[in-house]
């Protein structure tokens, strides 16, 4: 551990990525070697799902690596693009009307770029209030100018909510990269990775726990697997992993424990909320086959991060009083 600290920041981050890519390559090779065996249909299905998840992890890691290697500007741009695609997926799922056209244009072409410009220029105070205060007013005004009173509140609320999750939430991830913390300059990449790992671990632990425990679900109509018990286990495991990773962060071990728990808990709750949203949007399943095909999946994967990132970001800022 001490030797690691003696390395320069760049070397440390490089080492981290080499380790992660090594682990991923190993997992992929093991997965590949297991395709040679014969399997039942159920096993085949599990394997396909695993391979899809693995591919998503690969894509995510590559994305982080590219954004770290090419600096703050490119990483803000990459997250901005992800935000754009997630917001688009969100808008496609919710039903908008003709009168919403201008509000949607405002969301896609003005709010989204402006938010990422605020991040890139490190105007963190403006960045924190821009969407909850100013856009919150602007969107209903533009919608009202659309001259369509039909389901007005519902439509504006949907657009506002989509912006909050897909733009505001997501933009906190590159903000972490750019946050200037005492004795922690240029190491924001670690914070983002810490966040991503902790959230992913919380999700995995919660899923495994709910499968093992088979507790009564809290809200059966929304998720058949979500129970407080499983959620607590997810938070606990995330906190534990967070503490083990404390040396990558500017926190002491106890703060790392708390941060891990907070981020992991927020992420899994965000995932739960996203399930409710999909039920509302009429996404259901035809005996295992999802009823939405094509350009889907990004929102699901990004949602836990979108919910966890703002909570984590502000916890970090309070912790350091910056």
């Amino acid at each position, binding site marked *: 551990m001490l030797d690691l600290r003696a390395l320069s920041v760049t070397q440390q981050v490089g080492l981290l990525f080499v380790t992660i890519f090594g682990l991923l390559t190993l997992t992929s090779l093991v997965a590949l070697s297991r395709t040679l065996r014969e399997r039942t249909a159920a096993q085949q299905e599990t394997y396909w799902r695993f391979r899809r998840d693995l591919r998503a992890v690969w894509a995510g890691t590559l994305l982080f690596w590219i954004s770290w290697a090419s600096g703050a500007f490119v990483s803000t741009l990459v997250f901005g693009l992800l935000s*754009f*695609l997630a917001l*688009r*997926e969100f*808008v*496609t*799922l919710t*039903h*908008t009307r*003709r009168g919403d*056209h201008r509000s*949607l*244009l405002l969301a*896609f*072409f003005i709010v989204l770029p402006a938010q990422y410009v605020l991040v890139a220029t490190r105007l963190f105070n403006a960045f924190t209030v821009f969407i909850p205060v100013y856009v919150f007013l602007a969107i209903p005004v533009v919608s009202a100018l659309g001259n369509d009173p039909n389901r007005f509140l519902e439509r504006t609320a949907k657009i506002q909510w989509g912006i909050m999750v897909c733009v505001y939430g997501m933009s906190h991830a590159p903000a972490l990269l750019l946050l200037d913390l005492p004795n922690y300059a240029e190491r924001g990449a670690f914070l983002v990775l810490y966040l991503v790992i902790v959230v992913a671990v919380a999700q995995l632990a919660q899923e495994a726990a709910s499968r093992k425990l088979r507790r009564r679900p809290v809200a059966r109509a929304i998720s058949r697997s979500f129970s407080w018990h499983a959620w607590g286990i997810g938070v606990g495991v995330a906190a534990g992993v967070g503490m083990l990773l404390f040396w990558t962060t500017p926190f002491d071990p106890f703060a790392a424990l708390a941060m891990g728990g907070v981020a992991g808990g927020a992420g899994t709750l965000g995932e739960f909320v996203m399930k409710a949203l999909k039920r509302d949007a*009429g996404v259901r399943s*035809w*005996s295992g*086959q999802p*009823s*939405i*095909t*094509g*350009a*889907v999946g990004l929102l699901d994967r990004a949602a836990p991060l979108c919910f966890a990132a703002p909570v984590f970001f502000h916890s970090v800022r309070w912790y350091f009083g910056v």
Partner: protein
Amino acid sequence: MKLPEAAGLLLAFIARLITGAQGHWYGCPPKAEQRIYFANHQSHFDWVLLWAALPRDLRAATRPIAARDYWAASPLKHWITREIFNAVYVSRQRTDDEDPLEPLMEALRSGDSLVIFPEGTRGHAADPAPFKSGLYALAAAFPDVQLIPAWIDNVQRVMPKGEVVPVPILCTVTFGAPVALQAGEERRTFLDRARRAVIALRSVA
């Protein structure tokens, strides 16, 4: 993986990235059984959109119909339609001894699914034009093949009439419940019913 397959995956990826092509299955599951999808036709991209919205395992067995005089004219066009999309070629010039639907019948006999645009040409009105009779002939000849109506929502949503700037393309394809030809049903009645089934999906989407 062969080149056409890789090119197909890349093309579907690009189409999904740019158009956000989503398939919404309301009346039937996305399942690999023999089907004829029939949809409204408004733009040149309708086929690629519908194709990209299908899950990968369905894409391989679902074929478009291409006019031979246009899509077989240059080597590149021919390669794309033949190798990537596995298109069914039809000739637009009608000769006396040839049934224009014969290539479609042939494809259905060999178990493939088809996508047809029964309006015959691209429409610009709010509602699709009356359907041509090809759908009826296919339905009568292949009663076991499911007829799935589909509503392709692109131009309307991306840019409503009177607006200047398009919303970043949000295209959806809504698939409805199968429509079957009833015993003794008239040609025109059936075609109108099929057209209404397509239009009805607009309000669902």
